[in-house]
């Protein structure tokens, strides 16, 4: 068999490679078209739009950097950046820590552990508008269970969703409820850590904390890296819960950047301005991702180093 394909290749190597390449492009064609139609093309158009005043009613005019200068002098834009930043800075690390903590607990061999794993993953499967509405009811100032529970221990809870200081806190709490996805990725990582390593450390007299600190954490750092990058990207695009639960309010206290973008694109139909917002968001995400990637040699430990490859 190997001989026959070899002989064929020798006969017409260029022709063979060219047919193979042709078929490869046919197979890749949906992806290539998709990249052009839904990613690269729109990105270029969006960049051009961001320098225009296009808004469905107006003709298209290039207006230079007007959208960007207007954006930078717009208090609501800075407000949305601030809200998204606060949310990301709190919810991403908090989510990572809780997810890792749960994953470590769920990595034990205890009876019923599979049931626990499913339960913790469950909220991830049903995330969406329905659950957002449920949270809205839970955070209801008068009749929500959170404040009812607080009143049982004689604390008067805030009117969460109508209070400018507490609305964001409520959304952060909501986000923690959905750490199941991150948790499962950590769990997969934990299960990839060879048991012998832990055993060896245990015989060497390492206590549990130092085992965790010096073995688990470094070996899990690439998973943490993955979760961190996805977490930042997700947090900066956070939309559904803010839209359904608070609608960006009260008084713009939960005006996330994606909500601000939505308003300009689909309420005011300022497509040029909205495109400029999306490019600023894009640059921020790129910058942060780059920063995380750049910092990774300092804290991400790859398997190949351990094997000494």
């Amino acid at each position: 068999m190997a001989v026959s394909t070899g002989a064929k290749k020798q006969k017409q190597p260029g022709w063979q490679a060219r047919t193979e390449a042709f078929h490869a492009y046919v197979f890749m064609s949906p992806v290539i078209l998709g990249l052009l139609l839904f990613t690269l093309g729109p990105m270029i158009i969006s960049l051009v739009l961001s320098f225009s005043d296009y808004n469905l009613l107006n003709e298209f005019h290039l207006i230079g950097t007007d959208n960007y200068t207007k954006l930078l002098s717009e208090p609501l834009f800075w407000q949305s950046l601030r809200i998204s930043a606060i949310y990301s800075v709190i919810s991403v690390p908090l989510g990572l820590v809780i997810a890792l903590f749960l994953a470590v607990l769920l990595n034990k061999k205890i009876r019923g552990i599979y049931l626990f794993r499913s339960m913790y993953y469950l909220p991830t499967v049903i995330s969406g508008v329905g659950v957002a509405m449920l949270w809205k009811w839970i955070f209801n100032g008068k009749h929500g269970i959170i404040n009812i529970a607080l009143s049982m221990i004689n604390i008067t809870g805030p009117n969460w969703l109508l209070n400018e200081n507490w609305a964001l806190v409520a959304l952060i709490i909501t986000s923690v409820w959905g750490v199941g996805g991150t948790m499962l990725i950590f769990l997969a990582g934990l299960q990839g850590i060879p048991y012998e390593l832990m055993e060896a450390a245990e015989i060497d007299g390492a206590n549990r904390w130092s085992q965790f600190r010096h073995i688990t954490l470094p070996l899990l750092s690439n998973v943490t890296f993955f979760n961190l990058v996805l977490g930042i990207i997700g947090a900066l695009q956070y939309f559904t819960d803010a839209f359904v639960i608070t609608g960006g309010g009260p008084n713009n206290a939960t005006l996330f950047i994606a909500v601000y973008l939505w308003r300009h694109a689909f309420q005011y139909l300022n497509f040029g301005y909205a495109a400029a917002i999306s490019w600023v968001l894009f640059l921020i995400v790129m910058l942060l991702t780059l920063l995380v990637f750049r910092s990774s040699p300092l804290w991400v430990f790859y398997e190949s180093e351990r094997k000494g490859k």
Partner: protein
Amino acid sequence: MRFIFRSLRTRSAQQRLIDIVSVLVLSAGAVIILIPFFWMISTALKQNGDVFLVPPQWIPDNPRWENFSDAYAQLKLDVYAFNTFFIVTAVMIGTLLSASFAAYGFARLQAPGRDTIFMLLLATLMLPGAVTLVPTYLMFNTIGWINTFLPLTIPAFFGSAYFVFLMRQFYITIPRELEESAMIDGASVYRIWWSIMLPLSGPVLATIAVFTFVGTYNDFFNPLIYLSDESKRTIAVALSYLSGSPRSVAKMNLMMAAVTLSIIPPILLFIGAQRYFVRGIVTTGIKG
């Protein structure tokens, strides 16, 4: 030797204690996760007047089961369910076909630029969707697709980066011998993809199917911007119109009944196909 043995014994006692504490912590967490659901069902079963009782009734005295049928009828959930399942089915077919087809090219066939295209595809995973949003919307607007299901379903036929990646990772673990013997028999690459690779990919296809189902079913943003007719809404969008402002608490029992009904499909899927959810995350190979 004896020393090690003794230390192991105290370790096992210690281990036991840790296990007990772990179970306690996990149970507490599970209660926190389940309380909202319990509260949802409790509210969904209440008489309208009992919703705002203080202290609240956790288990309603006289449950009103009709809330579910009322919510179903009043909110026209049958129409929205039909729309949603139509879109979900189309997206699933598109995603499965395009991901499995494209991945074969990336996994098995050589072509100049192949790896660059693949890296480009992976890079889009980190691209915030917002940056392509406005032009994509305008494009669909220009070709008259707004207020149809087309913008929600057709893009699925162009391969989703994450699932193409997942399929490719799977294909490269399949031994080549199977394909080689088919090739000797004169089968084309397309035939090999269809009748050798696809039948072997059952579990990965199932994984992609469940994630696509959940993602599309729960998607709110796209149906929100592309569908304007009331009769075309999906369940997610219809629910959001029900929700109103943070001040409105009217008919909370019906609202929670609707929410309960809306989360039944993904929950059933999760119970039935749990292992595929877990597998999807493990097979990505990110565990190093």
